[in-house]
């Protein structure tokens, strides 16, 4: 069996788990933006599906933080590069594909399907290293790359997570041989269900090998499904890939359906029922001094504050997650307002959240960077 792991030290594992948090978070802005681009009173099926999925991505982010905490790490969502620069890139076999901020529509759905079903390669190719060397521009956010070398890409997100699973197993095995464990984290730092209501799945504490593997399994299963099945085994829940596929096919899946052939009730999609936001908008493209620009910067600033709040919640103050709930609803309102405003100088296009965190405002992370550099 192939046991080649790219992860050799605990510090490396921590960086990989930070990478996993970054990756899970990176899906949230595209999904949320598509969700809130939907016009009132239309596309209710699509809105419901997007909402369920984005909530599960938030769960995945929290699960990754739990695993990182379990091995004595300190989750930090305020790192300057934590929020992807959009369009960001995800590995798709030999190439990357773009993940951007855009309105709900066919193009957005095609991207979402790719996010949720990473490329698979045939068995004999799996014996090769999961890492592929591919030169990336310095300014690109390449998700699922090696934390120490942005030019080393995993073949797929599935293989990125497989490397983490292997790394955890190997490092724990090695520690056990020396009478130790890698699961030295303070149990009180774990985020559990009492801090996380209606969160799209169970949130359990991670404190040993089994709970860590269960946690990672949940992330992988909810995304791409379990071994090609459309429903996951325990929850009877449709994997994200197939939820998005329902929208493309215009029909719901039923139990027992074969992948690609939903036989449930039809659902209505109005492909024009979304505000025409300018894809991957940046603050710099919005007229200086306009109210839209001011509101866009205000949103980014608030989002940065929110990530700082999450960081505190993930570092021993889980009760702060309850405080984070109203902030998320506040985002919704702020995003809706940006998306409904026409973009000055771009007839037919609307504004959008830009998710440029820590830019265009008084830099809230300058202190952090100074500390890191010291």
């Amino acid at each position: 069996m192939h046991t080649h792991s790219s992860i050799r030290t605990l510090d490396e594992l921590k960086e990989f788990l930070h990478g996993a948090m970054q990756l899970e978070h990176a899906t949230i802005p595209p999904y949320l933006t598509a969700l809130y681009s939907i016009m009132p009173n239309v596309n209710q099926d699509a809105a419901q599906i997007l909402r369920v999925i984005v909530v599960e991505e938030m769960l995945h982010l929290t699960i990754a933080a739990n695993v990182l905490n379990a091995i004595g790490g300190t989750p930090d969502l305020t790192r300057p590069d934590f929020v992807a620069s959009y369009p960001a890139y995800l590995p798709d076999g030999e190439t990357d594909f773009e993940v951007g901020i855009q309105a709900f529509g066919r193009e957005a759905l095609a991207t979402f399907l790719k996010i949720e079903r990473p490329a698979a390669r045939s068995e004999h190719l799996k014996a090769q290293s999961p890492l592929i060397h591919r030169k990336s521009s310095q300014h690109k956010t390449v998700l699922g790359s090696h934390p120490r070398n942005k030019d080393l890409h995993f073949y797929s997100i599935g293989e990125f997570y497989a490397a983490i699973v292997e790394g955890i197993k190997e490092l724990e095995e090695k520690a056990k041989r020396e009478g130790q464990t890698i699961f030295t984290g303070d149990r009180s730092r774990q985020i559990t269900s009492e801090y996380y209501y209606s969160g799209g799945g169970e949130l359990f504490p991670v404190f040993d090998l089994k709970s860590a593997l269960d946690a990672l399994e949940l992330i992988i299963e909810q995304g791409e499904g379990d071994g090609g099945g459309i429903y996951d085994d325990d929850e009877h829940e449709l994997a994200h890939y197939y939820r998005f596929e329902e929208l493309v096919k215009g029909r719901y899946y039923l139990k027992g359906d074969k992948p690609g052939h939903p036989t449930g009730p039809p659902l209505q999609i109005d492909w024009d029922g979304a505000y025409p936001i300018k894809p991957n908008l940046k603050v710099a493209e919005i007229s200086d001094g306009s109210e839209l620009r001011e509101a866009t910067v205000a949103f980014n600033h608030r989002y940065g504050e929110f990530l700082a709040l999450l960081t505190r919640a993930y570092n021993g103050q889980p009760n702060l997650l309850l405080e984070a709930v109203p902030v998320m609803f506040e985002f919704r309102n702020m995003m809706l307002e940006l998306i409904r405003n026409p973009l000055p100088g771009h007839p037919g296009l609307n504004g959008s959240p830009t998710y440029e965190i820590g830019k265009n405002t008084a830099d809230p992370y300058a202190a952090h960077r100074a500390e890191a550099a010291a």
Partner: protein
Amino acid sequence: MSDRIETFLGLSVELTAFSRFDLLATGLAERYLGTLDKVVGGDTTNTLLAAFAALPPPGDGTRARALRATILGSELLGDVARSLIKLWYSGTWFELPYAWTQRFGAKPADATFVVSPDAYVEGLLWKAIGAHPAGAKAPGYGSWAYPPKIPAFPASDTKADAVSVHLQNVGIMS
């Protein structure tokens, strides 16, 4: 956007004291202009927009007074403008007063009605009082533990004009 909708937005900013961004953020500007056209007719709507366009420029000390005299104080336009304010704040068109219909004739579409389900949700009154419309835009579990967020009082020149209009209106009514 057309000049007509721009003028309508400019008028609405001064009537409601909310910013152009806030008004566009409701997603209802064009529908509200359409509501005016439908209820009082394109001619009266155009008269209202023209009266607004003819005001002294912003920053001119006489602008607020002129707005009060030529729009809010106008027999034809005053009640329409007041119904427009109520429309922005509540999402509901309120039927024009009896005196207005006696003077200018009843309009078939002039009844009290909610413009659309989202018009109720996007009423400016919710934002003005830092609350959310009952049954929509829920602010999240536990949000009741925090004080309401009231938007900052408008500060820019044009907005200050709008505020002074309101204060003078209070004076008229007392």
